[in-house]
């Protein structure tokens, strides 16, 4: 969890119930290479984080523990230890790790709870991360540094804010749980009260659904007067609507932003099928950096994934659009450098940030990017643009 204070202060202009923002995206499980869809989500969040913190206290919630406490992650680890016991993953490539992940799914369903439990226990007790996932996260961080993305703490494992039992007790006390554990059955979130389906949180085998670790971190924070922004894949919408309702039931103010994936050749498929080959973020950055410098790559990818493709876009990856975005990025950076001494820009830009913040409780990256980088406008003030779009990695 990273906190930052707004350098500009909040100016006392916030006519909202909330004071500050907590960005709470779904945590990517350290089992696969970052794809273009991941890059879109991470850049979207990065622009939102950097822009919103200009005008309000902004936190960015990312606890790797939450992803490590899921069946998806520990099933991958169990597979690796079964098929390649004692292997040294420290030098593995993204491709090798990604292919192992695809193979781990080829065998079908989830392993039995007894197989997963020792891993979950170890994550819980020691904050342990399998070496293969540690290697993957290192590779992710390298790519994100290159892209100038603020690291929300991808390698900074910490205990969750409360135990699973606390989450279930709190939900139960609010009457939000249908709890049949005493009959040896599952425990469910009472989704029907919100028009959602009943959602299993604890299986008959005691296995906890991925929503429980998320709630372990978010539920204890919910009393703060901040806006919680849940960011997720559209495939998880039903679960995230339930999550939103739960946090609201505990007094939270919540916005929910699904971010559409970037289809490749018209197809959106889960990483487990391996369709990413050749289109990972690593592949893309190598291809881009053969033609452009690092600042242009950073801004160009942001223009493409944040402004050309809107948040909910379902347009397939288009190399031509990316090429044009990179070209536009290069022009903007050149023009911005040329007017580095102008003084009237910053006030106008800060004004824009405030207006966007007040209208939605956070600065919307699409609206900001299309406004700031609009052809008809003067180029953005270089300091601000650099801080938000092609700046340093912090």
């Amino acid at each position, binding site marked *: 969890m990273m906190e930052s204070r707004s350098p500009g202060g909040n100016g006392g202009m916030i006519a909202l119930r909330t004071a500050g923002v907590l960005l709470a995206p779904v945590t990517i499980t350290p089992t696969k290479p970052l794809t273009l869809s991941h890059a879109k989500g991470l850049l979207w969040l990065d622009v939102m984080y950097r822009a919103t913190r200009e005008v309000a206290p902004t936190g960015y919630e990312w606890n790797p523990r939450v992803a490590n406490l899921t069946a998806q992650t520990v099933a991958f680890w169990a597979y690796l230890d079964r098929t390649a016991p004692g292997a040294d993953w420290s030098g593995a490539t993204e491709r090798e790790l990604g292919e192992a992940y695809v193979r781990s799914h080829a065998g079908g369903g989830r392993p039995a709870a007894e197989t997963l439990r020792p891993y979950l226990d170890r994550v819980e007790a020691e904050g342990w991360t399998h070496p293969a996932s540690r290697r993957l996260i290192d590779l992710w961080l390298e790519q994100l540094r290159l892209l100038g993305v603020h690291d929300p703490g991808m390698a900074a494992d910490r205990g969750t804010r409360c135990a699973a039992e606390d989450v279930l007790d709190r939900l139960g006390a609010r009457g939000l749980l249908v709890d049949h554990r005493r009959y*040896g059955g*599952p425990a469910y979130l009472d989704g029907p009260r919100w028009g959602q389906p*009943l959602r299993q949180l604890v299986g008959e085998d005691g296995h906890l659904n991925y929503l429980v670790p998320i709630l372990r971190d978010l539920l204890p924070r919910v009393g703060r007067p901040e806006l919680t922004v849940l960011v997720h894949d559209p495939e998880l919408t039903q679960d995230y609507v339930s999550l939103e309702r739960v946090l609201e039931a505990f007094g939270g103010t919540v916005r929910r932003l699904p971010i559409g994936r970037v289809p490749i050749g018209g197809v959106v498929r889960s990483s487990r099928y391996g369709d990413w080959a050749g289109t990972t973020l690593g592949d893309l950055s190598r291809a881009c950096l053969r033609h452009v410098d690092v600042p242009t790559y950073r801004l160009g990818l942001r223009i493409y994934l944040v402004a050309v493709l809107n948040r909910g876009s379902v347009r397939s990856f288009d190399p031509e659009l990316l090429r044009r975005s990179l070209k536009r990025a290069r022009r903007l950076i050149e023009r911005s450098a040329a007017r580095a001494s102008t003084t009237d820009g910053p006030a106008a830009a800060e004004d824009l940030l405030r207006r966007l913040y007040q209208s939605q409780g956070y600065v919307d990256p699409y609206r900001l990017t299309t406004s700031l980088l609009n052809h008809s406008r003067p180029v953005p003030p270089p300091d601000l643009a650099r801080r938000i779009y092609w700046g340093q990695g912090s």
Partner: protein
Amino acid sequence: MDPQEVLRARLIAQYTSVTGGTPGVLPKSPAAAVVVRDLDPAVFLAGTLANAFAVPAVTREPWRRAFTRTLFFAGNPASLASRVDFLHVTPDAAVGWLPPGGAAAASLSRSLRMFRGPREWPGVRDRFLLPVPGGSGRHPGGTARLRVATAGVSAAEYLIHAHHVLSEAVLRGMLRPGDVLDVSHLPDIDLPATEDGDASDGEKPGGEEQLRIAQDPHREGDLRLYAALTIERGSE
């Protein structure tokens, strides 16, 4: 006589008496649906009785001929009250019944999950008395004795067995408002003795007992007596 043979004969007699010899459960036979948030045996049994009395006249006979087919869902009745019309809800709102043959059960299957409770439950309990609802108190009814087997019986199985035996007894007029139900939960139960000592005698409509005999999942091919309801009536 081999106890399994006796159980088999009783089961066949019961089947014949419900269906009149024609095939009973058809694909379109009505099913009721029960939404379960929490279970208390006394509350559940009382609710089962109240629900069976509340079944609309037009559905009573089709449901009886379908052996009171019922689906049990996990869910919170209070969260569904605005969308479905429950026929009966327990006072603690922990269990709700949807009428047999209604359309609501199909829509529930999309938002709810089938009840799952594999653990032995409720196990052996203290004996308790339960008034059969709807009595005026002026005409003393009979005392019915309900014995339920619990050894190795899971919560999910208990719901099914107890629900069948009471619903069927109400629909065929064996239990009446004002009767009192004397309930025992025991590890195992025996067949009630019949007057002439002939255990293979089939039950008669309006007769004095209602049994729940079903396959024992722990002993392949064997039948087991899960619930037995008997009643003594004063001179009427």
